[in-house]
């Protein structure tokens, strides 16, 4: 492992910054690159699912399998783009879009009752029964003016999260 900052030229860094709408500073990009190389143990240019899971804190996360589908095999630029939603500078819209994508596992642009139910299943594991989960969800959707059959679109998510502040920030350590 060489010195990562010397491996990235200024052009490279600017290109990556462009790709993530300048949500990360140059130093942060350098730090992220070091981290990327560290996780990409076999230097293939992407981080495999197995390499992600070698981080126990990630492997323990209830949503790790779901997130893996989104981050598995990303190259550095897309890796940074994915993480940029967690930047303090990222817009609320971008954060909501990411949340939406996590729910929309089949990527068809709409979230069904079952999509939400599955996230709920990941989050609660064996500690809630399927009936309980359904019951909760039906009730919540009813109160919000939706039914079992309705699909939630991105706009619906924007409405739901609209007037609250989302705490979704991760600081990139710079040393």
């Amino acid at each position, binding site marked *: *492992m*060489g*010195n990562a900052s010397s491996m990235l030229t200024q052009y490279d860094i600017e290109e990556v910054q462009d790709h993530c709408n300048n949500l990360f500073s140059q130093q942060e990009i350098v730090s*992220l690159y070091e*981290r990327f190389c*560290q*996780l990409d*143990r076999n230097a293939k240019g992407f981080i495999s699912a197995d390499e*992600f*899971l*070698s*981080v*126990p*804190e*990630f*492997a*323990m*996360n*209830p*949503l*790790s399998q779901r*997130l893996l589908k989104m*981050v598995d095999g990303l190259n550095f630029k897309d890796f940074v783009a994915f*993480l940029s939603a*967690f930047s303090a500078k990222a817009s609320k819209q971008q*954060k909501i879009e*990411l*949340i939406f994508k*996590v*729910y929309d596992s089949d990527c068809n642009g709409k979230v069904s009752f079952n999509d*939400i139910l599955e*996230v*709920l299943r990941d*989050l*609660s*594991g*064996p*500690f*809630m029964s399927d009936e*309980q989960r359904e*019951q*909760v*969800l039906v*009730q*919540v*959707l009813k*109160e*919000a003016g939706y039914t079992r059959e309705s699909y939630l679109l991105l706009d619906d*998510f924007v409405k*739901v*999260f609209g007037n*609250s502040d*989302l*705490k*979704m*920030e*991760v*600081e*990139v*350590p710079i040393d």
Partner: protein
Amino acid sequence: MASPRKLPTSSSELDLDRLNIEDYLPFGSSIHEPPGQLRLSVPLSPSFMRRDLLDITPTLTEAAGAIVDDSFTRCFKSNSQEPWNWNVYLFPLWCFGVVVRYLILFPARVLVLTIGWIIFLSSFAIVHFMLKAHDALRRKLERLLVELICSFFVASWTGVVKYHGPRPSIRPKQVFVANHTSMIDFIILEQMTAFAVIMQKHPGWVGLLQSTILESVGCIWFNRSEAKDREIVARKLRDHVLGTDNNPLLIFPEGTCVNNHYTVMFKKGAFELGCTVCPIAIKYNKIFVDAFWNSRKQSFTMHLLQLMTSWAVVCDVWYLEPQTLKPGETPIEFAERVRDIISVRAGLKKVPWDGYLKYSRPSPKHREGKQRSFAEWVLQRLEER
């Protein structure tokens, strides 16, 4: 930092080994804390429930945080040497150093090591086969010889080792525990006292040494991945500490090499033998070379070569105050207390991870803790309406 609440978890025998990681994960409060916990007293409005139920940001943030940085990976990160040959004056100096290190020091060291091995092997063979009848004398000589070859090893990297505190003596019912950075820990400790060590069985020439020579000082080998080995080792341990004439027992309770900036969880095995535990703290000075053996990147031979081509290996060894189990203390608490003592002395940071996670994935139990608290929160909210 809010301390996450303790979750009752089922425990099988194997899991007793593991501390409740969630009790003190780094990034403290980022651990999943159900969003509603703080707002339970607030009158429920439909949007609260709806938003909080759909709001997966705490979990997402945690996951992203772990991707960006995590304390576990930090424990096993080799520190790359800061290059210092970056200008016109320094570069020739550095080149000179390379020439000296590789063309003068290295061959001299190989010679020293070779001489050491010749002396050692010939004497060892004689002692081992000629003195079969005189058991006590034979063991004493073998002990001395093992210490001798370890001194040759230390000399082969110009080891500058400062030992602090009283030297260990042979007596029953005590075990020595030390933090673990590389297999050279063992060599450095062994040159002063012939310890019997518990170690992972290695392949290659190291394995050969383990099974022939080191067995004579009473070392015990095991295979990390063999569940059966655990029992056998535990039994051997018990037998060993009871013997009055056995070499003092040395255990590296971390079970894996850590980069000498952190300590990972201590396995409780050494702490439930009912013996006095004598902590040893080892701190390497990384001025010339990083003594951390990153076994994933390097074979032990390469690691030794790296040490032998450096200027010197500088390190401090502290033999610390012996500790005994306090009344009412569990072996795990005892292990943590000893880890504290070693970490403070060697200036290492403590992390709550089990070092074995290097070789396996965390058990689903750890995830279940988070799921349980989420489920409890949702059900509680449901009941309240």
